[in-house]
């Protein structure tokens, strides 16, 4: 699953852009994707929609998959 990586603001803006374009019509679904924080770096990610691109100048970088360091380590 592809993700965009960038600042919290740019990731949140992308989520809002996709949510608005998809126009959820149900009573439960309210947004496209959670914005996820990297456990150790000042980076955020948001799931990429297959056909909706970010605003030009957003600075978001598209990656095919998130690297393992995005996962928090907890036991066991």
């Amino acid at each position: 699953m592809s993700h965009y990586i960038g600042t919290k603001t740019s990731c949140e803006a992308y989520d809002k852009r996709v949510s608005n374009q998809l126009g959820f019509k149900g009573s439960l679904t309210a947004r496209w994707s959670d914005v996820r924080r990297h456990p150790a770096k000042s980076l955020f990610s948001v799931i990429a929609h297959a056909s909706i691109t970010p605003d030009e100048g957003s600075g978001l970088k598209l990656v095919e998959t998130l690297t393992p360091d995005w996962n928090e380590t907890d036991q066991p």
Partner: protein
Amino acid sequence: MLGFGLGLNKWRRVGGGYVGLLDLFPNASAAYSLRKLRAAYSGSAVRVRRSSDNTEQDIGFTAQGELDTASLLSFVNSGKLWDTATDGNLTYVNRSSVENNQSIGGRTGVQKFTSTDTNAFFGQVNVFPAGDTNDYTIELDVYIPTGQDVNGVRTTQPFTSSPQTITQGEWTPITITGVNSSNVNFILNMLDDGSNSISAGQVVYVDTVTITQTTADGLVSAWYDQSLSNDATQGTAANQPKIVDAGVLVEENGKPAIEFDGVDDLLDMGQTIDLYSLASEWSVFMDAKIIDYSLQSFQRILINDSSNSSPDIPFGIQLRSNNDVAFFNNGTVELSLTLSSATQRTLFSFIKRSGDVLIGINGSSTTSTKGSVDFTAGLENTTIGCSPNGSNRPANMKSAELIIYSSDQSANRTGIETNINTFYSIYP
């Protein structure tokens, strides 16, 4: 033997009345299933969002207590990307002109397209998402006046269809099916005996255009609690598990199942059910089949997490690619149980009692150590398919049933397990 035990036919109609698992073993704190679990339950099984137009609908049960898959598939595969009844008239013309609200052949309010050159076409731009390759059914009524050279139409986008011959002087309903070849527009060409080489002044009337995607995904936004009101929900689209995949029902062993993607899918049960405090007793019964471990070697099928540092898990069931399964309870982890296959469908049972815990794998049970950490502080939500943060140990799995009691169900364990296995045929 299975089929002759306590659970035989208990889900079926007995003596004329429906008897579900919760009728036999009542007072669950939460009960999620794709079959009806008690006779008096009048709610739905799941709420489903279809990916084609993001509409949601509740899906219930048949009279036999099974998931109403006919309604589910009908709903998911009927999402319209265009419907003139709600979206309005077509607006795109090329080498043609359009006049709206025309009357012809006994109808009013229809659209009239007139060619202004050869290769005339019309339709609607930006109907489909970029890169789209879904299947579509396009339906419309066409009227071509008598005496025209034009006697047919065909789509050239989203796919090139065969010529649709129209009988002049009457309304002709046409249905065209095909796969989008990554187009974003809907375009109809006017044809003269199958050729788009036509003269100016040819007239085609069009009415009731619908474009229906027939390969949508059905995503679960709520798995309804059939016992109380602890619905498991997911309001974030990308984190919703599937119950219909590209127009096809998700199944396991011939029965519907919910599929979690192993990336971020989860259903959230909130914090209402006590699966965390040291003094409480609880019993959990859940079926799960891990699809594969390529994305994660540790996969959490059910987890009650906390914000504590290690130990941080009040309760959970986590499978691992080396075939073992970890049952967490109050900070203790039991890792010794081994499955015969890491990807076999399994019925897991976990009963936390006053002095120990009882763990069941496909009807066979063993006792183990009760944990000692009280997680009444820092509690996070209980979630199905992944940790509540949507990223830790996500499970790429299918599941169809999860029942939780806030009590010791040791006396009923065999009956509950047999009832579940009789319906789903999980183990021999």
